[in-house]
């Protein structure tokens, strides 16, 4: 099978915007063979989605246009086809699934109708025959009870189910090539594991090729046969999977690996890629990565690097690999990263700064004309923990488990239904009005989305000083300004930022502004609600380093809310794993991540795509989705998905079992041991 299924040659797409003409896809070549998975890896804005849209000829016209190149599908150039013929290719021979399953389905049609539409179009089947194929497809993508499900509407399905339906629609035409644009980015890790396994199985059964677009090295490692790394509109490295993970060729690829947070890197700052992705509006006359590369020398800034073959399976676009160019290179050792000083981790538990005890947050569900309460959403149900001074406490769990609600109820943005929140010995839940307002400078929050967490109509300077003004911390305007400038220095932003608007900054810079805003009121506790999950890997590393440094310098305590366990491994001292409003396992990072005891923690850890193939664990597949917190299952909430469930689990919620000095778990599997020990 030497003839590739899809061959892309010299593809160039241009985009006209207010800011000038961009080339998001600039001279891209690659081949995809039948039955293989080809992954395009890159950070946001590098042009990977645009490449996929160009192949499908779905570039939004008239702003965007494909200006050069060929896209050969089985020898036929898609770019020269008339639009009518192209419509027969889309869905039939090349199908596509998107990142956001919530918006890709039409909310007013049942999923059966939506799949049937595709079946009718591409296979010409009608009536009972079409319905049969729909049921087969639903069965193929692992949806239980297809007969019933095909009559349901998209809103009745969970995110993972919707993505399965999208895959079923894509499969309806029996395509040769499936383009999957970040298919699992919007999903939780346990669901992501399900969807990736599904894609692998379908590929094996049907022999289709997959073009997988992702920013996640773990996903690449699990899925890819071939890897292409995109940077600023170009493919900078292409390789088979094994050599890529063994020895990435391009300095950019290497940096991506180094900037991943991992437990082994705990003691040191993460490597970062300095600077930002260059604007695609400018013309490139040299290496696109030269400005951010540790190895760059004169040639890199003057000459465009050639495409160099390292081996049969690996090639990259870098002067370092070019035998001719490297001769002119100065004798150089790679520049050492800024500071690799060993961090002093705060030892031994200290007096807690924040104590949460029996916290409950229930939201009433109201119905009918008189808005009677007909039920409760048990968002947070009896949660207790404590955070020591200068320590980092991580709350981990899938979306909908109530971790954000805990963060907000500690800050009293949501008033808890029951339980106590004591900050430095003072009870916050009973504070009101002016007394609560004065206490607010002690605890601050950093949000996930750096784009919606700042008022777009305020200057950065006003945003940062808003807290100081509201709390009357620095009444003198000149001194306040000076403090804002000092804060901007501290988080690594230029001082002229304060007279600019938030939209002028990139995601990472905005997150720095948010951190500066929170620090302005001298807090002692920062609630970080997924502060890096909207950011690229290299930017995430910058923000994590910044948070580490601030903790060392100012002795801050962090409540770190995240679903990313590698960030937890890198940053946190203690971890609590949440499932459906309750903490199921709690301990130090080493205890919980090194020796997970609760079946949910084990499944969660095994579901994370791992980069190192030797470290790959057997994935414990969890069936189904997170149940609704409005109707939690009886007994242990996890029992319907738990591989070890016993009859006892269905009727009783397990009590806390102490496994070590700080390691606790709520599971019947360990209760017996505990009881036995107690009995001795």
């Amino acid at each position, binding site marked *: 099978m030497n003839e590739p299924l899809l061959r892309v040659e010299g593809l160039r797409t241009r985009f006209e*915007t*207010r800011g000038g003409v961009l080339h998001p896809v600039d001279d891209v070549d690659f081949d995809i063979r039948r039955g293989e998975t080809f992954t395009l890896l890159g950070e946001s804005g590098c042009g990977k989605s645009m490449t996929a849209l160009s192949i499908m000829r779905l570039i939004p016209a008239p*702003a965007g246009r494909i200006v050069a190149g060929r896209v050969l599908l089985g020898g036929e150039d898609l770019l020269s086809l008339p639009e009518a013929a192209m419509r027969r290719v889309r869905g039939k021979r090349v199908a596509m699934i998107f990142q956001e399953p919530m918006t890709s389905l039409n909310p007013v049609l049942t999923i059966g109708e939506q799949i049937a539409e595709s079946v009718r179009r591409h296979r010409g089947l009608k009536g009972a025959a079409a319905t049969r194929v729909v049921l087969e497809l639903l069965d193929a993508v692992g949806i239980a009870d297809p007969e019933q499900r095909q009559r349901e509407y998209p809103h009745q399905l969970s995110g993972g189910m919707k993505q399965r339906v999208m895959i079923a629609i894509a499969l309806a035409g029996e395509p040769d090539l499936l383009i999957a644009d970040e298919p699992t980015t919007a999903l939780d890790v346990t669901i992501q594991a399900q969807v990736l396994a599904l894609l692998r199985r379908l590929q094996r059964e049907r022999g289709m090729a997959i073009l997988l677009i992702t920013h996640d090295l773990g996903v690449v490692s699990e899925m890819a046969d071939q890897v292409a790394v995109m940077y600023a509109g170009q493919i900078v490295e292409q390789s088979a999977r094994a050599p890529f993970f063994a020895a990435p060729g391009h300095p950019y690829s290497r940096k991506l690996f180094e900037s991943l947070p991992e437990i082994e890197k705990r003691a040191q700052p993460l490597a970062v890629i300095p600077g930002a992705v260059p604007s695609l509006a400018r013309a490139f006359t040299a290496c696109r990565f030269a400005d951010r590369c540790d190895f760059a020398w004169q040639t890199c800034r003057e000459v465009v690097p050639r495409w160099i073959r390292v081996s049969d399976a690996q090639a990259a676009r870098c002067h370092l690999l070019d035998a001719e160019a490297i001769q002119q290179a100065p004798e150089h050792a790679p520049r050492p990263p800024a500071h690799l000083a060993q961090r002093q981790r705060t030892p031994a538990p200290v007096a807690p700064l924040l104590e949460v005890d029996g916290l409950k947050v229930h939201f009433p569900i109201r119905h009918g004309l008189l808005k009677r309460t007909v039920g409760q959403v048990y968002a947070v149900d009896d949660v207790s923990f404590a955070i020591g001074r200068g320590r980092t406490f991580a709350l981990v769990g899938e979306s909908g488990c109530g971790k954000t609600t805990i963060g*907000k109820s500690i*800050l009293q*943005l949501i008033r808890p239904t029951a339980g106590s929140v004591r900050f430095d010995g003072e009870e916050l839940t009973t504070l009101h009005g002016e007394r*609560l*307002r*004065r206490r*607010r*400078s002690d*605890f*601050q*929050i950093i*949000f*996930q*989305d750096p784009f*919606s*967490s*700042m*008022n*777009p*109509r*305020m200057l950065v300077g006003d945003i940062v000083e*808003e*807290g100081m003004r*509201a*709390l009357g911390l620095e009444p003198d305007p000149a001194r306040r300004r000076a403090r804002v400038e000092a804060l901007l220095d501290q988080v690594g932003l230029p001082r002229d930022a304060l007279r600019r*608007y938030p939209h002028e900054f990139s995601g990472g810079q905005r997150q720095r502004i*948010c951190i500066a*805003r929170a620090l302005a*009121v001298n807090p002692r506790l920062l609630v970080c609600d997924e502060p890096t999950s909207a950011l690229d890997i290299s930017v995430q590393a910058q923000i994590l380093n910044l948070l580490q440094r601030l903790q060392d310098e100012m002795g801050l305590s962090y409540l770190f809310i995240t679903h990313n366990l590698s960030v937890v491994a890198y940053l946190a001292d203690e971890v609590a794993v949440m499932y459906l409003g309750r903490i199921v396992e709690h301990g130090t990072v080493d205890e919980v991540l090194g020796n997970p005891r609760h079946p949910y923690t084990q499944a969660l850890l095994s579901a994370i795509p791992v980069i190192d193939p030797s470290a790959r664990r057997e994935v414990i597949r969890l069936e189904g989705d997170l149940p609704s917190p409005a109707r939690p299952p009886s007994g242990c909430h996890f029992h319907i998905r738990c591989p070890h469930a016993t009859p006892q689990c269905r009727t009783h919620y397990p009590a806390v079992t102490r496994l070590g000095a700080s390691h606790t778990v709520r599971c019947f599997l360990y209760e017996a041991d505990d009881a036995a020990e107690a009995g001795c």
Partner: protein
Amino acid sequence: MIKPVILWTDALVYLLIAAVIAFAWYARGREHLRAPWARVLESRIAIVSLVILSAYLAVALLDSLHFRPALEQRGEQAQETYYSVEVLSALDVIARPLKERAEKTYSAPFATRLYAREAMEGPDGVTVWDYPRLRHGGAHLADPDAGRAGDIARRALGAAAAGGALWLLLAALVVAGIARARAEGFTSTLARVAAGRTRIPWRAGLFAAGLLIVLAAAAVRLAGVYHILGTDQVGQDVFYQAVKSIRTALVIGTLTTLVMLPFAVLLGIMAGYLRGWIDDLIQYLYTTLNSIPGVLLIASAILMLQVYIDTHPELFQTDAERADMRLLFLCLILGVTSWTGLCRLLRGEALKLREVEYVQAAVAFGVTRLRIMTRHLLPNVMHIVLITVVLDFSGLVLAEAVLSYVGVGVDPSTESWGNMINGARLEMAREPMVWWSLAAAFAFMFTLVLAANLFSDAVRDAFDPRLRGG
């Protein structure tokens, strides 16, 4: 000697103008406020509409400078000045000949004779049944039937030439202004403007202004000796009425908004942000108000006011003040019935924004609720307010015409397009038909509403974040 009179609506119009100027001054230094307006000005259609709207606005402003002229005194009474009971405006002074040269009854546009036959005594003493000459329209012509077309053409061309010269002067000033602002040569700037290669489409704007100036010059010149849009039943010049109606329309279109905005913005944001019983109360209020038929509410309010005015003549010194009070009250009642739509929109937007993270962050900082509403919510819903206001304007101008037609609009003595249409409805049934009153009102109203609609389209395109992008 004159005595300035500031009517209620005049005061509000000045206030509105002052507010607009103050906002422009404030927005100058704020990029997020300035940028969308700069985008509006980049559109050719918006510039042309803006030129037309400014012409209307200029007329309305001239018509809003009111005063009472002193009466001529004789003899020993000279120490004390008495003022006329008639309130005039600057526009009236300019257009005095139009107002005073009334005919007996209908006459067609540019006519020299009346539209109705009359018994006349001829020079030879014989009574003839014929169309008499007009007292003023075309009175300067010796032979009206032969010399009229030539006379009109001559005067129109002369006026157009004068208008053209005026326009050249204006264009030169504009180009010189651009050249100065960019520190560029006059000729190179001129070439750029002429080729249409400027960011703001000056060429389109100047073109529209030129057309308008030439038309206005010709109209002014001809209106001096003819009734260019004919006369109505009592011989009043229709062109004069149509021009005088501009102020009424603009006052209704803008002041109503001024009345409605505080309700809509304040209540809408409060309902959306504060929730709870305040939200319930405000929702019930606007739902109730919305379910009362608007025309009935307006009719009853206006009729009640009319009764009040009639029973308290001592409160009003002049007829103009009485008419003005009714106009103002019409604005008020239209405002009261039309704030609910915007209020509902803003409540929805505030509901969305209160969950946005920057508002949450502000709460976490202990920022007060009032400050959150003014600093965080208000600026972020302003684009909706603006789009609604501009879109509503043309609707209100049309609403005035409809209400006056029904008889619950402005005072019958106030010139307005609605009153003109109301007066013209029987004329359409006449034989031969009298079409010019209706046509004049229609043409003036159509131009204004079209310009306002096109302008509001451009504003919406520039302000609506969903339409931006790319």
